[in-house]
């Protein structure tokens, strides 16, 4: 699934970062690289952009950008255990 499909509070691990050009590089620079774990916080009141928690800070990006990020959801108990 892609990052934009997550629901508030859900955690996931990044599998791939697609897209091209400056945007993709920017995502990589901000620490969105495969294997990284993130938490989906919320969408803005109008539904876009979204806010995620990654590497200890809050990051906002647009849905269009989030669609480029392939993630794998972590089940809640698994996440609690700190896998």
């Amino acid at each position: 699934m892609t990052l934009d499909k997550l629901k508030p509070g859900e955690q996931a691990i990044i599998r791939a970062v697609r897209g091209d050009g400056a945007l993709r590089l920017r995502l990589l620079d901000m620490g969105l690289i495969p294997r990284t774990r993130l938490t989906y916080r919320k969408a803005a009141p109008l539904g876009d952009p979204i806010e995620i928690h990654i590497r200890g800070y809050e990051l906002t990006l647009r849905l269009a950008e989030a669609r480029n990020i392939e993630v794998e959801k972590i089940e809640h108990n698994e996440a609690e255990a700190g896998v």
Partner: protein
Amino acid sequence: MNRNLVFALVGNQNCGKTTLFNVLTGSNQHVGNFPGVTVEQKSGVVRSVKNRTVTVVDLPGIYSLRPYSMEEIVARDFILSEKPDGIINIVDATNIERNLYLTLQLLELRVPTVIALNMMDEVRANGGTIDIKALSTALGVPVVPISAIKGEGVSELVDRAIEVASQGILPAVWDFCGEDSPVHRCIHAVVHVIEDHAQRAGISPRFCATKLIEGDGGAMAGRLELDQNEIELIEHCIKEMEAETRFDRNEALADMRYAFIEKVVSQTVVKPKESREHRRSLAIDRVLTGKYTAIPVFLAVMFLVFWLTFNVIGSGLSELLSLGIEKLTEIADAALISYGINDVVRGLIVEGIFAGVGSVLSFLPIIVTLFFFLSILEDTGYMARVAFIMDKPLRKLGLSGRSFVPMLMGFGCTVPALMATRTLSSERDRRMTIMLTPYMSCSAKIPIYAVFSAAFFPKHAALVMIGLYVTGIVLGVAAACVLKNTVFSGQPVPFVMELPNYRLPSIKSVALLLWDKAKDFIQRAFSIIFLATIVIWFLQTFDTRLNVVEDSSRSLLAGVGKLLAPLFVPAGFGDWRAVTSLISGFTAKEAVVSTLSVLTGNTSAAELKGALPGMFTPLSAFSFLLFTLLYTPCVAAVAAIRRELGSRLWMLWVVLAQCATAWVVSTVVYQIGKRLPAFGVPGYIILAVFIVAVAAGFVWLANRSRGDVYAVAEPKGEASLSAKPKRKRGGCH
């Protein structure tokens, strides 16, 4: 004598870089909690060092050394071309992973470097620890824990920085790739190929190698003067690595850096479970960016800021200042009379300079008050949330959420609104916002609307007012769509932005900002506005033979008004007095009313109200109001446009485009209205609907063609992106 040293201050956005800069230099650089406040580089001399001159250059906050955003190019070029003696890399200890990502790239540059580990107090207060010694060993550079806000550790930082720079101590570690990994092999192979070239160019081979692997748009290959063979060899190495790691080149390098960081952090940092500041931020965000609360809270905050600025504090102070200026003018006038100064010279000083500059200066309290509130919103971190909340609607116009606040401020006064665009990190968004802000009807136009409404539409004053504001907004939206598809076509900037923790603003930082803005404004009032008021005064006072006129209707200005009047016959107000008042409205919009009063021989607004129906019909009055809504901003705003866009040509373009729009709209409305059988309030509604429809048609047309334009426009967008940094670079020298 000791050698003088130059340091570059480098770090992420929101890591306290500018705070440290202020502590080091005592300069009045603004500190913001909004990503991307520093656009230009500022430098200052470190105060505490006495035996030599140590200069610190505050580079833009960046996340990486890639050459694709303006900030990164400025920072990178400074380090590569200006060759500072050392780098002070400021790292936010509360967000250490992402901050170290930039650090690793800086270390590859092989320049004497010191790491300032900021916000250590916050880490400690939350029960976290960082093994400074181990971190320093792992990174191969001195690490000094500091708290920039409290000024702790700063003198040690300066000592260590001077030590490494004066002795030329290079970072001891620069190899971050795991032993014998494919990335390691690739980097070392590339280093081997280019080593000689890099040494000739005076850049670290390691840095060149990673930039070549990352692609870099060919810039590095050109800089090193690589030949075709070498380029192909490098490409071969990279392909091999990509095949082995199954990552593409950029992913592989980012992964290498983050893997190294994770290892270092796991060995040296004991993270607090969750910091108090972060928990607090999340709690605040539940309300401030919550699904149902965000927009009401935002509107309430904006209303409060506006109300306090324009109705309570700012306007009160403004009146006081006006009174002060008036008194001063009287005293000066009396003094000039008693010294028997020539009447014309006295007129120039009192009616020209004092009145002109004075009327502009009376804006100062409003501007300072507005900036006081805005800087608090910015420093607390709320502005980043506003961008988050408002991004979606603004994106439709080709802007991003960050443009919202400046445009909103345009309803108050265009000048501070334009100054506030500095907080936009994207140059494209900034220029576009500057060009759209004049469509937001500023508060100085309210007296004009009020007088005309009272004279012509007493029963529907509110409707007319709202209609004018809405017309401005709709046309602004239409203009945005046109601009988006023409001048600013191409990719909008990605919106990947940090939402920093909420922090209490420091009083010092706010005070420094206010002083900066006030100084800026006063300087402008005494330069360009000073000149403009003299010109207008001259035109008002003299006739064509350079004789002083007794009757204002014979002045040069009236002459110009009469000359231009026929132009406005199609719009319904060919009366020379109306046109002249519009010209003097260029100095300040309130002047439209005062000039009309003078030219019609009335002294008060109440009297003027009685005289207006002789000059206008309700329809032509409405057309006149539309024109005042849309035509060129006042001289103070135009000066701000010139300054913020950095070009006279662009300024002229904005002024002409505004005037042309105003003329077309008012003419169309007048011509159609004239042909409507019974023109009354229903007529206005029909006209308003018509304007909205035309604008919407524009938007539709612009968006329809977007599909075709987009494909063609993309390279153009890129071209302009790469052209901008060049201009900026020129400006830095």
